């Protein structure tokens, strides 16, 4: 595309997937126990979106990548220490809660407002990237709502592949039922692409990229706008962990044939 793309990636932090999570009831509704103390990572599907954005920007001259991130400022700063070394981007930080119990509608509102406020953003070249769902709220709706607020009528969910064709059109592969892909061609930007895993590995750390990014990230964090998001109109009756403990029967030192016969009988049973 002539002049490249303006790619805005929406993504925030979530608890490290390996952490044990426990719900509690706080003054504003449900929350996670020791939420501020839990190690965080960039939301996995949003991370894929960011890596795909950087990859695309590298190929399309004149492109630029912004990361719009809503979370507690201190935790965002921690996250940026590692994330900044991955790929070049400009941070737009919003200081607010990143937990899963905030309503997508409210989150979409503040993110859309932040995107509208990005100086120099050319909406005709806009590709709005994000994860197809977060690992916290796991609703899979925020990107579409932001797209609607920004007036973007071409939207794609669970994207694994984006190809910019010679005529500037976008060939998109979206995951659908049964392990298949829906293939569509969009005339060009603006478009919303909510990514699944894509095809790119996590980029290695680059200290040079990190230093370059951090020059802009620290000021962006300092001027992060405080925003209020919650769950207005939602009444949580309870939030609980499922009873997941099972009494596991351990079959050890049994002949392979015996194990195989038991499995076959179970499958057929």
């Amino acid at each position: 595309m002539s002049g490249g793309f303006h790619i805005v990636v929406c993504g925030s932090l979530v608890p490290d997937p390996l952490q044990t999570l426990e719900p509690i009831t706080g003054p504003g509704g449900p929350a996670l126990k020791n939420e501020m103390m839990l190690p965080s990572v960039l939301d996995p599907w949003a991370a894929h979106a960011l890596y795909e954005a950087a990859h695309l920007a590298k190929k399309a001259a004149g492109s630029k990548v912004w990361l719009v991130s809503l979370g507690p400022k201190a935790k965002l700063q921690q996250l940026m220490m590692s994330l900044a070394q991955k790929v070049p981007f400009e941070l737009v930080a919003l200081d607010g809660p990143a937990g899963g119990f905030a309503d997508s509608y409210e989150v979409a509102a503040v993110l859309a407002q932040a995107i509208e406020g990005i100086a120099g953003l050319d909406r005709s070249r806009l590709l709005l990237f994000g994860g197809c769902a977060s690992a916290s709220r796991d609703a899979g709706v925020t990107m579409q709502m932001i797209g609607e607020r920004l007036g973007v009528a071409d939207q794609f969910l669970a994207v694994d592949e984006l190809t910019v064709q010679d005529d500037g059109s976008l060939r998109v592969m979206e995951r659908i039922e049964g392990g298949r892909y829906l293939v569509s061609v969009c005339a060009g930007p603006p478009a919303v692409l909510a990514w699944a895993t894509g095809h790119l590995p996590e980029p290695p750390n680059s200290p040079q990229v990190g230093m370059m990014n951090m020059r802009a990230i620290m000021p962006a964090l300092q001027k992060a706008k405080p925003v209020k998001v919650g769950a207005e109109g939602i009444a949580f009756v309870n939030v609980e962990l499922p009873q997941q403990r099972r009494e596991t029967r351990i079959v050890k030192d049994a002949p392979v044939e015996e194990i195989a016969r038991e499995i076959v009988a179970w499958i057929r049973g």
Partner: protein
Amino acid sequence: MEKILYLTHTQQDDTLSKAAREALNAAVDLSKGLAGSTLTVGLVGEDVQAAANAIAGCGAAAFFGVAGAEFAVSRYGSDAAAAEALAKAAGATLILAPATSRLSRALPGVAQRLQGRIDTHVTGILTEGGNLHIQRWYYRQRMMATLTRSHRPWLLLVDPAVFDPWQGQPGSVSVQAVAASLPEGGTRTHVVGVEGASTDAQTIRPDAKLLFVAGAGWTKKQADGQTHVKEAEALILGFLEKTQASLGSSKSLVDQSSEGQEVISFLSHLNQVGQTGATPRHPKGLATCCHGEEPHVVGWRFINERRAVNTDPNCGWARGKADVLYVADAFKVIAKVNELLAEG
């Protein structure tokens, strides 16, 4: 009084999918549970009459339809326009729809257009005392919430395989045609078609009775100090062929393809279950060579009967999460299982 709209799309053959009939059952039950509520049906597709006739006996007070060639395909612009028009025609306060890929993409934007609110991955609908509460999971199936909302319209995307499919008498109904105009730019997207994953074998079968999960152990060095990836492929494919199981994989195994390691050729990210993959619903699941804990628990949340084959008796994933853990070499076990299955 709630005005409930059951909203769905037809398939290519103008019928309703299993997921669509499950959501209809949920909508019918909801209507019965909320005194004074009314149920209407909204259908989107190339031709919706046959689908409407097929569910004529569901008790809906009215049937609305947006039909035409441009609404036959799965595309955000046309789907959102159709759903918005149907919601407005029905004056809906509650909108129930199946969580198909098509509606999961379109309805959040429709909620925004209607100034409504939306909840997805709905796995329970409760109407005790005449009040609507839903159940849905947070943090990728790691905790479940029961909640309600005061805001209307409230859109609900119902997860598949939670409710039984609606079954009832077909008939002949009058479908009220609703006009849905595509927004400017709404046809900038052209649907090319559907493709399988870029692997040789079709290994994902959502309706299978058994989920077979292959872990990274299949590609690790075995007792002889060598890897046996081709042998692993043959064993796994043989098992899938004989059992018609669906194939899942751990993240670590799928990621190997992008890390330059020798990989199982027919695995893609679409096979991945867990924290950043799918959470499929199957009656039974057999895990082989899987390690790790919490992410696997997430992927297996909706598997009823679980067994695992693993060389580590203390595997944190299997103990307490599986019903039976066979401490054995999966290569040998699956080879023998295949042999027994072949004998019939």
